[in-house]
């Protein structure tokens, strides 16, 4: 058997776990590992400029590919800088393996230089974590980490490695386990047949059904199965923020996103439904509004792989714990066997009602007479310019909601945003992670002048590795979503929601060696888009687009109301 040092074992085990890229930053505790990385070429390392960005890059990679993203950081500040990125991945159930260096094991607990309790710090935001206590355990721990991160409900796993576990002169027998076995971890493989049967019976009897699909459908790679079910039943489908793309955004049965900034029709459909089929969604507070007023007439079926998601915020009638795809297969098989079909007459009249709702708001916004654009029209222009087929990442705020509402995603894995944690600074590094793995695809980061500054240092990484993402900065000179809430709830007192002293973004990106294009008015946009996507196709382009700071995101649910209680514009309420 081969003898390897701990550092070499780690790198070899990562390779055997299928790792192509590590996003990381070296430091004292990891120098032996970085030396081992240097001596091989199978696993590539991307040097970021801040460890938070490493976690978001790995996250973007994971969301686009479905494979676990890998982060490597040193002890102390290196480790703590990843915390926001780990929490972001945890909240959105993204597979990730984070390797953090640690001080020598005999120094742990002595407040040594760059020592921090990474396992303790990350404990509430990881699916699991490991501390390496013997170098020879490294291959098995790595294999277990990847297994845990990527199966069941995925999530981040931390491996903390003290420096003396990686000493170059201490060699051990290397054995990567053929199969990972954990007696206390057995994610469900299939749903309960009796429950699935009950669900199908309910769906067949439904008069006002809706299918409410979330990020779990995308994570499970089951978008095709969702589409088949929706189309077969002729039911309306709504997506959560995390589920966008699981059903085509341009599909005729799609009623749009639901929730706080969901479409009028999606929220009305939910409120009036008699049967709700929730698939891989978790009844988040940004979806349900007041839980006591949620879907008053509905029987609710809930498919989720995580039993703790079921009846957490909303009590459901038919819980099904299992992988989405497997449960949908069983549902389809039961429908095939059944002689029954949905009540065509009821469904037709339901659609008639839905189409009336569709007319009411229809995602309208007023364009300005002046050249100053509304953010919505910029997103629509980007959608047209990319033929609706780009990978779009976003940061957090108004621009995120406008992108979710106005960029119609027809494919899964294309909409990449921090839905659960709401992490500003996520979009740009996430876009980098996507672009490095899909160099032929268009990757656009929709951001704002607030969010982009939270990880703007990665412009340097993009130059080093040649990562030509497109950054669309909707620049309204203020923290738009904060400002909107202040307009609506604080009589317009804009407490600290201005971004005073903004940099000249064009000069800034040029200083980093990229292309910057400023758009101040509507007439300039077509040429700017042409240059962004064609002339500078192989360059990173920062598109700094001035947009109207007065604009609000609508619809917006009224706090503590039901799903149908919405503001549709600054003056119109349901």
């Amino acid at each position, binding site marked *: 058997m081969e003898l390897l040092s701990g550092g070499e074992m780690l790198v070899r085990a990562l390779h055997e776990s299928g790792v192509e890229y590590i996003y990381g930053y070296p430091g004292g505790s990891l120098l032996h590992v970085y030396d081992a990385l240097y001596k091989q070429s199978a696993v590539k390392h991307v040097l970021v400029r801040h460890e938070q960005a490493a976690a978001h890059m790995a996250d973007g990679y994971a969301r686009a590919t479905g494979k676990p993203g890998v982060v490597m950081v040193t002890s102390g500040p290196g480790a703590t800088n990843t915390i926001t990125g780990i929490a972001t991945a945890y909240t959105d159930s993204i597979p990730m393996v984070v390797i953090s260096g640690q001080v020598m094991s005999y120094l742990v607990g002595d407040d040594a230089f760059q020592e921090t309790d990474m*396992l*303790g710090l990350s*404990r*509430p935001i990881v*699916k*699991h*974590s490991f*501390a390496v*206590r013997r170098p020879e355990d490294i291959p098995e721990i790595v294999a277990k980490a990847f297994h*845990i991160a990527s199966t069941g409900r995925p999530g981040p796993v931390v491996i903390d490695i003290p420096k003396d576990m990686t000493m170059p002169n201490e060699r051990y027998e290397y054995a990567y386990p053929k199969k990972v076995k*954990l*007696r*206390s*971890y057995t994610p469900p493989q299939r749903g309960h047949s009796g429950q699935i049967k009950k669900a199908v019976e309910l769906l067949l009897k439904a008069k006002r059904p809706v299918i409410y699909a979330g990020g779990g459908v995308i994570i499970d790679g089951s978008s095709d199965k969702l589409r088949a079910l929706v189309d077969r039943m002729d039911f309306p489908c709504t997506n959560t923020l995390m589920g966008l793309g699981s059903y085509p955004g341009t599909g005729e049965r799609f009623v749009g996103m639901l929730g706080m900034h969901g479409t009028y029709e999606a929220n009305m459909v939910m409120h009036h439904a008699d049967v709700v089929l929730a698939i891989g969604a978790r009844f988040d507070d940004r979806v349900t509004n007041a839980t006591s007023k949620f879907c008053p007439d509905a029987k609710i079926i809930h498919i989720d792989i*995580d*039993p*703790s998601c079921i*009846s*957490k915020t909303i*009590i459901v009638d038919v819980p099904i714990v299992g992988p989405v795809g497997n449960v949908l297969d069983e549902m389809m098989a039961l429908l095939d066997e059944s002689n029954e079909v949905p009540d065509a007459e009821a469904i037709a009249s339901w659609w008639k009602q839905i189409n009336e709702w569709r007319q009411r708001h229809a995602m309208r916004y007023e364009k300005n007479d002046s050249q100053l654009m509304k953010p919505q029209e910029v997103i629509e222009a980007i959608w047209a310019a990319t033929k609706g087929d780009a990978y779009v990442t976003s940061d957090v705020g108004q621009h995120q909601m406008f992108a979710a509402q106005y960029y119609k995603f027809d494919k899964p894995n294309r909409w990449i945003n921090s839905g659960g944690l709401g992490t500003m600074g996520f979009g740009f590094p996430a876009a980098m992670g996507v672009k490095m793995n899909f160099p032929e695809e268009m990757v656009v980061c929709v951001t704002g002048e607030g969010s982009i500054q939270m990880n703007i240092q990665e412009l340097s990484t993009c130059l080093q590795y040649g990562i030509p993402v497109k950054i669309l900065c909707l620049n309204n000179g203020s923290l738009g979503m904060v400002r909107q809430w202040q307009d609506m709830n604080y009589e317009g007192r804009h407490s600290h929601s201005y971004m005073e002293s903004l940099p000249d973004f064009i000069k800034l990106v040029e200083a980093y060696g990229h292309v910057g294009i400023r758009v101040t008015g509507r007439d300039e946009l077509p040429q700017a888009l042409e240059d962004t996507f064609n002339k500078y196709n192989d360059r990173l382009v920062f598109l700094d687009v001035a947009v109207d700071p007065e604009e609000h995101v609508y619809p917006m649910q009224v706090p503590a109301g039901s799903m149908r209680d919405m503001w549709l514009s600054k003056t119109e309420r349901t």
Partner: protein
Amino acid sequence: MRHIISILLENEPGALSRVVGLFAQRGYNIETLTVAPTEDNTLSRLTMTTSGDDRKIEQITKQLNKLIEVVKLVDLSEGPHIERELMLIKVKAVGAQRAEIKRTADIFRGQIVDVSASVYTIQLTGTSDKLEAFIEAIGAGCVLETVRTGVSGISRGEKILSL
């Protein structure tokens, strides 16, 4: 309602902190907690008492089950079970009180395990209710110090919690 949750936990460093951390993180309350190794040295047995409505207890058990190191879990209060807690209690015992306290300890089947001129140390086992009843019976005024192990529990009859 009070529940007794009994867990078989991987006997690994950090496992207990995950269980305790979960309660703090999600705003659940731990009333008592006791943990020790079992006959299988790879497993610890942990017993905790907590309270909440059915929905909250359901969430607690689901969240605990999600922890990778939680191997098996049972809510003992769902079925017939035996629960015990051990208390060592130091009480002021002078003059006529000495005999009275001794009698009360006997009634509760407690044992005086240490004696000094003015102090008895009594060992008492039973349900939490019984321990509290004892404190009430001797009068809180003469209690100098109490230390309790927290509840340990086991199902009655054939039912066992094992791998």
